[in-house]
């Protein structure tokens, strides 16, 4: 099998659609390869290479819909999968909101694809790990993390003549340096082999770990904070999870419910979802083949819009924005961007009289999704800021904070931003990321603390 056999995939998919007894049939193929080299205590300890190709089938008889999946790359198996989806549709109940499968639309965006990424080897990854480990001159600091490379391709075809193909390459890395009582962490994502400066990430993580040595106590409470890029990335990801979706909005389970058109956070906060943005690229179309479109979610603090798929779009008499995910969640953004400001990170820190610098959050979860209240821990580099300077490292805090309220007190945003991908996450098929600046927030609630 070729590594990306677009011709054969298209051929068996179209044959399977022709074979289908359903009124409408859609086949979406997601395939790719992903290789991860993982290290801990400054040695490679785990590896994972996978190659997969899944065919998802949606069959509709009128408004009755059935779904099936196979990863057997075989014409007969795919036809059996189509039959299975048809049988599901036959016995299902009508979904009154099913709008029919999408019609063809031009796809004008081509995601970045670096052929060199396809050729990266275990030896290349191992060499990078050795470079990362070598950053630590102090032997009491150990390196952990991973480096991964891979590519994903998507092919969508349906009964209405829609047919789209795209591919995207990815390189991701996270580095954690851990010392006797401190740690530092950085991560990065890119679509090209040379787009990710792994050594630079490692040096930043090591520098943070060194600066965090012998952390001290600070009472819990409310403080001004400067949130580093990773910390902001986490908050944005969780804001997304709390209901940036047409389905959640329509079902009154979104923090945006009843608030569209209202000012919900700071005037300097603008959040969009845009898979075609050169700094936060994603796939060209969604999992029903509709081209990805830019969605303005919050503009200058005002709730403006949400991602749609074709079913939710029909309910609201609008157009799909290309965010169908294929699951119960409904449409969700996968390429979230917080618009930049005009400051530097040093400039933000200099502006704070007394506050806390947070590198990163850990194990964040939702306390109240409608109020956008999250809880979680700080981790891997938390520092006290006094009179515009980082003066001492701190032990970690638990925070419990309303995110929109915190962003309403945003007093500074950096010009530069960082991209964080899915980080070798749960599936190699997720091509998602957040592009975020660092932020200075007037107040953040540290509701507890831990011993380290």
């Amino acid at each position, binding site marked *: *099998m070729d590594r990306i056999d677009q011709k054969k995939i298209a051929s068996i998919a179209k044959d399977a659609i022709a074979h289908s007894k359903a009124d409408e049939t859609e086949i979406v193929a997601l395939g790719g390869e*992903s290789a991860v*080299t993982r290290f*801990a*205590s*400054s*040695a490679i*300890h*785990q590896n*994972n*290479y*996978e190659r*997969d*190709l899944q065919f998802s089938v949606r069959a509709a008889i009128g408004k009755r*819909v*059935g779904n099936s*999946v196979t*990863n*057997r*790359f075989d014409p007969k198996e795919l036809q059996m*999968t189509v039959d299975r989806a048809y049988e*599901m549709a036959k016995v*299902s*109940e009508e*979904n009154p*909101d099913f709008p029919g499968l999408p019609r063809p639309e031009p796809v004008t965006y081509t995601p970045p694809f670096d052929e060199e990424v396809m050729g990266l080897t275990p030896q290349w990854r*191992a*060499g990078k790990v050795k470079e990362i*480990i070598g950053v630590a001159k102090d032997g009491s600091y150990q390196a*952990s993390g*991973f480096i*991964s490379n891979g590519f994903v391709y998507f092919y969508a075809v349906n009964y209405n003549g829609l047919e789209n193909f795209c591919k995207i390459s990815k390189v991701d890395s*996270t580095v*954690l340096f851990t010392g006797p009582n401190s740690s530092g962490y950085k991560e990065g994502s890119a679509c090209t082999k040379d787009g990710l400066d792994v050594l630079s990430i490692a040096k930043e993580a090591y520098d943070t770990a060194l600066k965090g040595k012998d952390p001290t106590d600070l009472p819990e409470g409310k403080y001004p904070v400067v949130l580093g890029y990773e910390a902001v990335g986490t908050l944005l990801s969780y804001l997304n999870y709390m209901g940036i979706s047409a389905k959640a909005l329509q*079902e*009154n*389970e979104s923090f945006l419910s009843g608030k569209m058109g209202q000012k919900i956070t700071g005037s300097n906060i603008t959040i969009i979802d845009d898979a075609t943005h050169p700094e936060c690229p994603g796939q060209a179309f969604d999992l029903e083949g509709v081209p990805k479109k830019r969605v303005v979610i919050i503009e200058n603090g005002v709730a403006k819009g949400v991602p749609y798929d074709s079913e939710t779009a029909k309910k609201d008499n609008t157009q799909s924005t290309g965010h169908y995910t294929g699951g*119960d969640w409904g449409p969700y953004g996968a390429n979230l961007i917080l618009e930049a400001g005009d400051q530097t990170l040093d400039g933000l820190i200099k502006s704070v009289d007394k506050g806390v610098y947070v590198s990163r959050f*850990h*194990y964040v*979860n*939702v*306390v109240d*999704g*409608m*109020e956008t*209240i999250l*809880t979680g*821990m700080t*981790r891997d580099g938390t520092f006290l800021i006094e009179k515009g300077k980082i003066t001492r490292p701190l032990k970690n805090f*638990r925070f*419990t*904070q*309303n995110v929109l*309220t915190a962003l309403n007190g945003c007093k500074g945003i950096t010009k530069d931003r960082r991209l964080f991908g899915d980080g070798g996450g*749960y*599936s190699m098929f997720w091509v998602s990321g957040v592009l975020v600046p660092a932020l200075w927030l007037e107040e953040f*609630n540290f509701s*507890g603390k831990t*011993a380290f």
Partner: protein
Amino acid sequence: MTSITDAFLNTASIKKIDYSDIRVIESDRESITIKNGKVQTLFRGQDSGFGVRILHQGSWGFASSSQISEKEVERITLEALAIALAAQTAKKENVRLAPVEVFKDKYKTPYKKNPFDISIEEKLALFLNIDKLLRINPKLTNGTTSYDAWRQFKTFCSTEGSYIVQELLETGAGIEAVAFRDGEVQRRSFPNSFRGHFGTAGWEFIIDMDLPGNAERIGDEAVALLDAKPCPSEKTTLVLDGQQLALQIHESVGHPTEFDRVLGMEAAYAGGSFLTTKDLGTLRYGSPIVNIFADATLPKGLGTFGYDDEGVKAQRFDIVKEGYLQNFQTSRETAGLLNQKSNGTMRADGWNRYPLIRMTNISIQPGTHTPESLIGETKEGVYFETNKSWSIDDKRLNFQFGCEIGWEIKNGKKGDMLKNPNYTGITPEFWNNCDGICNDKYWVIWGTPNCGKGQPGQTAHVAHGASPGRFRNIQIGIRG
């Protein structure tokens, strides 16, 4: 299948690989979701592939593919070998495996009715009826009924001679009611949150849940929560139902006792542990009534199997005994460091992942109370039920949990309903404040199908047996 495992063994032999194993997995999955009377998902699918794990010259390699053929097995075995050899570049010490008994065996999940044999029509009829009952209350906003089933045919073959075939079946279902008013959402779930309750069992597991018998009550409770009192912020006596205690065990006992975490192998992602090997036998983890064990043989436990993904037989061992830490969960690689054999906790979530130490069924021994005596002895306190959110620090010390519903306890009786209940604590302090656990009549083994770990990420199906328990002097009511 033997042609595939023969191709693997042949390649491993030609290349004189020190140790290698292959898992070939074919699985079926079925899922139904009904929301507000609409069939949102009606799905049945298939997934198959194989993964080869190699330990050569002291380094690991792993590679996998969905294309099951002899030619691809040879290619993938050589890919895994190349990865293991490349790993020599950044190696400190050779990995050594604790010995394991060789098994040629079969295992099959016991069940009465195969859910895949129940017609879709029968399933839809049941779930659509449950959906109607769930949404009787006109003030309810959304009602969701869900069902999932997995069936896995797994063949494990190692160069040491083991050949194990397992057929694993998992089934689960649940209901969720959501009430929305004036920007506030409250939810209630049954039998458990996040798609319900799961076990290694058949269709009978879902019938025994009695979803129809509980649906209307759950809908009413979601609506009632909108008018409930907010959870107060204070230190008090906390009684937890078994579902929430199960997740407490998961986060604050299960994860910190995974030995790979203790050794720093998960530092970059999920974190480490506050425990060290010196704590074995000496650390007072909880009060004397706290006895926690791992048992991969428990009937219907979602963490139950015949053999783990290293071919180690499913077994039971103590983790905490009479309050003292006894054992970590280990693998062949890590057990040797304790001069022990693996206690059989290595599992991967599919053919395309290398196995990691994962919880099996980590459970607390039942005690002697009834819910009536547990609450009856409590002068002032609160009772919380069903998890809504969870968070813990990267050494597993500071935690915060939110539940769906609570009640005041005053003078030994359940009083007013509370909304948005949550609590926080530090792991060993919390467990040392445990002074009452209900007896085995109230003990349920709760399935947790969404435990995340590893890079690339994996989702493990695990379980925790628990009865309701009582904890003194706990901080509740944390708001932003």
